[in-house]
């Protein structure tokens, strides 16, 4: 097991109280596993992605632990996290288009970043060139300024920069959201390629595009309102979803080329506010199958090998 997250609670501190963005998240990730992390906006998936590498100043680690390759990841301690960042855990941010300093040539920025992390740029120069070619960029981008690249090119540069030190864990936060469909595919394929070549260990791929992620991810984890709803092998989660939320989420997706004449069904209602969330199962109010027991929080249990679900209605409870 490379990554183990246990009961992780991260809250956003606001003037009106704590927003419980992550409320007891437990999962694990195997070596080389690519996990798609899906859910609606505000369900905590980006918060989880960020929590694994760097909490911003509004985020507070309340409880829970993270373990990477048997070592504790001290996410509450910013200074202690520094040695792990980039070397062990890395991030491709949601804002990849603006992640590069606009007034530095890309090559120089990379050199300065590497040097500041105690790596001799010359040691990684060949690897950098090879990886740029792998994602379809020439080495001339190193002499360019970010403004001279297209959005897709910047995205790929950031992908190469983030993975240059071969991290054991890579968090890809909504990396495909701003791209067109064909570019989305090539970005996803490059990430799988990076994993296959051992440039990155395991990967958390945060997205809301279930259709895209199930094509290349090994597993899918569905989050709802700061809780894990379901985690399992990608094919199983899509073909045989156990949690009512996953089922409804999937039925809300259109399928290309098929016209069954049926209207797509959305999920009625909205997710609960996380400032003062309801007790028990957080999907309760929108769930057609809810019953009395749902006032109590359902534990995440393994319903089939590697397939976990947190619902009182799934078998195994």
């Amino acid at each position, binding site marked *: 097991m490379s990554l183990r997250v246990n009961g992780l609670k991260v809250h956003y501190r606001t003037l009106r109280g704590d927003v419980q963005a992550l409320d007891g998240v437990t999962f694990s990730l195997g070596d080389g596993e690519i996990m798609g992390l899906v859910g609606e906006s505000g369900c905590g998936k980006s918060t989880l992605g960020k929590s694994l590498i*760097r909490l911003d100043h509004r985020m507070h680690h309340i409880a829970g632990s993270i373990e990477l390759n048997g070592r504790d990841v001290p996410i509450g301690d910013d200074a202690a996290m*520094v*040695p792990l960042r980039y070397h062990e855990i890395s991030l491709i941010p949601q804002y990849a288009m603006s992640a590069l300093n606009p007034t530095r040539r890309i090559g120089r920025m990379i050199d300065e970043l590497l040097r500041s992390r105690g790596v001799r740029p010359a040691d990684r120069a060949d690897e950098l060139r090879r990886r740029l070619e792998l994602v379809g960029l020439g080495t001339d981008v190193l002499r360019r*300024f970010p403004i001279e690249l297209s959005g897709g090119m910047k995205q790929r540069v950031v992908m190469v920069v*983030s993975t240059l030190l071969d991290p054991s864990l890579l968090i890809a936060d909504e990396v495909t959201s701003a791209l067109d469909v064909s570019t989305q595919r090539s970005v996803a394929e490059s990430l799988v390629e990076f994993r296959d070549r051992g440039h990155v260990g395991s990967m958390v791929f945060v997205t809301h595009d279930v259709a895209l992620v199930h094509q290349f991810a090994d597993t899918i984890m569905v989050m709802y309102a700061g809780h894990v709803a379901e985690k399992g092998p990608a094919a199983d989660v899509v073909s045989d979803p156990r949690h009512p939320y996953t089922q409804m989420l999937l039925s809300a997706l259109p399928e290309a080329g098929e016209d069954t004449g049926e209207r797509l069904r959305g999920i009625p209602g909205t997710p609960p506010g996380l400032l003062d969330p309801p007790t028990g199962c957080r999907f309760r109010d929108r769930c057609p199958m809810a019953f009395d027991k749902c006032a109590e929080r359902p534990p995440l249990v393994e319903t089939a090998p590697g397939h976990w679900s947190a619902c009182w209605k799934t078998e195994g409870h």
Partner: protein
Amino acid sequence: MWRYMGRKLLVYALTFAVAVTINWMIPRFMPGDPVRSMLNRGSISDPGALERMTAYYEEVFGLDAPLHEQYLNFWSGLLRGDLGISVMLYPEPVVDVILRAVPYTLALLIPAIVLSWIVGNRFGAFAARSKVLDNSILPIGYVLTATPYMWLALLMAWSLGIVAGIFPTAGGHSYALTPGMNAEFLASLVTHWFLPFLSMFVVALGGWAIGMRNMIIYELEADYATYLRTLGAPRKLVRRYAYRNALLPQITGLAVQLGTIITGALLTEIVFNYPGLGTLVLDSLNNRDFFLLQGVFLFVVIGVLVANFVIDLVYVFIDPRTRVQMTGASS
């Protein structure tokens, strides 16, 4: 690159032409006749003599020609470096009077602008570092920018000049000395220069510090800074990037401020009776010396345009985004 420069130069040339035209128009369409007011000082009672003298002076100043000819004469004189003859200091040419004052103004302005900009930026970046500094240094900046300039200058002249007696409070040099390249005269120049310089420096400092502090806080929250921090880059690197990027708007601010700084110099020179362009403006206004006034304004216009052009050039070298616009590449 050259197309960009050509376009910029064209805009500057147009601005210059418009400014010169307005500059020429103002004294001519303003109430008050310069020749009459000059002759009034002589209290000539004979109307015949007055008429002859008026005709003579109008010819000397070129006021007898029709307006459009005056305009063309003005341009041709301008291109030959001839701005006419001063009324106040008749018969000295305007150019000579101005050239005598320009070194004083430049010696005052350039160090005050450049040093306050550099120190203010450092100061602001430094203040953005911590809450404590932010809460102690910044209010000083606010007080400095909010202080009426004349009041601050008078306060300095009074405290450092009159009470402490360290610096002289008026003039460009001691009148007891003959100008020359000797140590005594140079020392006198420096001591006379110090107070006007200090007052301009202090007032401008606060504004730059506040601007820089706000810009750098914005840059430190920018995505590229967050990305670097996420990858564990040390504060030093993030700050260096943020500082450099925060400087760009400050440079634009400098270009915008240059015009107002010259009016600032006017006040300084008047308060300290410093023999630069500002004092010249006041004197020529008091004496209805429109030709001199016109010449001084022309110098100010040229100064502002040149300064802006230099900043345009500087921008090309420090901001890659300007370079991309220049070559017309799509971003």
